[in-house]
């Protein structure tokens, strides 16, 4: 049931080198260098428009960077797309799945596309693992946001990826849903050994679930360290939120 670790030996789960991306005239990622080891839960923080989703879009092979290099499990996201997509799971923000299909049918479809041979066993195991059994044979179109998010996670892990990318996973969830999701992420990391790369702008999530954080500000990576190191580096700050605000303010001051 564990995600099997493959790819070139001792390579980081995710690596970015001088990664830049431009949409028309707007530079949204500026020479980002980042390395995330296997087994981490990485929280990628930043304000709206900081470039977090662009980074995830590059890492999940949806777009190609305009400059620099990125790899997942040691495989180049541009030249080894197939190798990368076999090793990742992805849950974009506000995904709706196929509303006319049941949860099980949605999962079977994505499992088959991922190349699984025993699709129905993998789907049943995943539904059980995430306690989604009662939702299995209901059409996704009738689901609440929280239910849809659980099925979204299920489609992302049905093929047991090594790295799981989550883009603003708690958006639209109620407090109970947020807590369930947090527990699910921790279980996936602890029990299945998945590396988790989570985009968010909610600091409470990061503080409770992540092992490492990175802060992106206007396309530049201004900070990266473990949660413990971060809180000990900023001992005077009351919360992670204060630390984050201070980092962004420091970065803005340095820029001017």
């Amino acid at each position, binding site marked *: 049931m564990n995600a099997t670790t493959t790819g070139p030996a001792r390579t980081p789960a995710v690596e970015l080198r001088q990664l830049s991306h431009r*949409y028309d005239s707007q530079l*949204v990622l500026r020479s980002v260098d980042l390395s995330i080891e296997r087994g981490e839960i990485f929280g990628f923080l930043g304000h709206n428009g900081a470039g977090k989703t662009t980074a995830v879009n590059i890492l999940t092979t*949806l777009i190609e960077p305009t400059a620099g290099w990125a790899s997942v499990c040691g495989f180049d996201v541009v030249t080894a797309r197939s190798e990368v997509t076999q090793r990742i799971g992805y849950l974009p923000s506000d995904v*709706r799945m*196929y509303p006319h299909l049941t949860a099980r049918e949605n999962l079977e479809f994505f499992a*088959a596309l991922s190349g699984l041979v025993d699709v129905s066993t993998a789907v049943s195991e995943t539904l059980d693992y995430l306690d989604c059994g009662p939702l299995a044979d209901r059409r996704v179109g009738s689901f609440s946001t929280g239910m849809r998010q659980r099925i979204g996670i299920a489609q992302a892990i049905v093929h047991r990826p090594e790295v799981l990318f989550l883009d603003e996973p708690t958006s639209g969830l109620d407090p109970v849903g947020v807590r369930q999701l947090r527990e699910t992420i921790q279980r996936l990391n602890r029990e299945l050994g998945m590396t988790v790369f989570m985009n968010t702008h909610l600091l409470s999530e990061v503080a409770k679930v992540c092992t490492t954080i990175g802060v992106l500000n206007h396309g530049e990576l201004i900070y990266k360290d473990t949660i413990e190191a971060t809180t000990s580096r900023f001992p005077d700050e009351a919360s992670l939120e204060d630390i984050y605000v201070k980092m962004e303010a420091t970065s803005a001051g340095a820029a001017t």
Partner: protein
Amino acid sequence: MNDSARRILTLAKHEYRAAVRSRILSVLLGILVSVTAVSVFIASVDYRSQVADYRAYVASAQAGGVQRIAPSPLRPLSLLRGATEYLEIIGAVIAITLGYLTIARERTNRTLTLLRSRPVTAGELAGGSLLGAVGIISTLVVVTGTAGVLLAGLVGNDWINAAQAVRLGLAAVSAVIYMMVFYCVGAVATARSKVAASGLMIALGIWLLVVLIIPQLGDTLDADNQIPGGLFKALGLNREGETQILSHFHTYETTRVGIEEASFAKHYERFSFAMTDVLDKYREYSLSQLLHEKWHDIAWLVVYPLLALAALWQSFRHQPTIPTGDLQ
């Protein structure tokens, strides 16, 4: 079966299931079968009396000891003329809508990003969608055709024979190819547009031009069509005389024929009408004679789909995966 073929088949089944589950297939079938049934029924009522007349003639000729009985001039396939025309006009709109929905559905559900983050290539996505659409469109054509034949047999009291069934099968294949081209038009226009509804409008504009305007232009500009019954016939000119006169209008005729040739709909119509006995002059042709006579239309029925397939593949390769507004 290799991994790529398996993924294409998975995508195709998914496309077909989406059409069935969302009731699109049943609604479209309902529309096509209804209009076909009405047209075949109306044509069959008059046809039935012609069949009765012919059978009465055969019976009286046999009773009178006549040795050479004239073959029946009646062709039950010709009762499907309305079905062919509906497929040409409404079928094209239906196919465009299916192509539009293929892209719009993925965008609305935001599932395109999920698909592209799997080990699926653009070619496999295009192939799967296309194969699924072939299944949906074949279902529409086969059910509509079968309903038409059954109705023609029951109401018109004349059933098609094996040779006619083969020609009907070829006409059905041409209808599927014809509709698939418009499916590609709908999918390509939608994939190329940032707003899916704009793509649908562009595709319907192309439909208007190719199916309604261009074929009409060609017909309207034809000198022979200026008088009911034919201008050259009214002038007492045979084919040779007609050719001689038209040679003085070479540029005009070349332009007019060029306009007609540009319409894929015209080629489909010519081929289908020939196969379903709509045109009197082809009624005594054997299948091989028919195919030989219609090779020009067959060639266009191959060229246009190839162009459409190339455009579809290109569109899936370059289609923006990320919805507008999610760029950062």
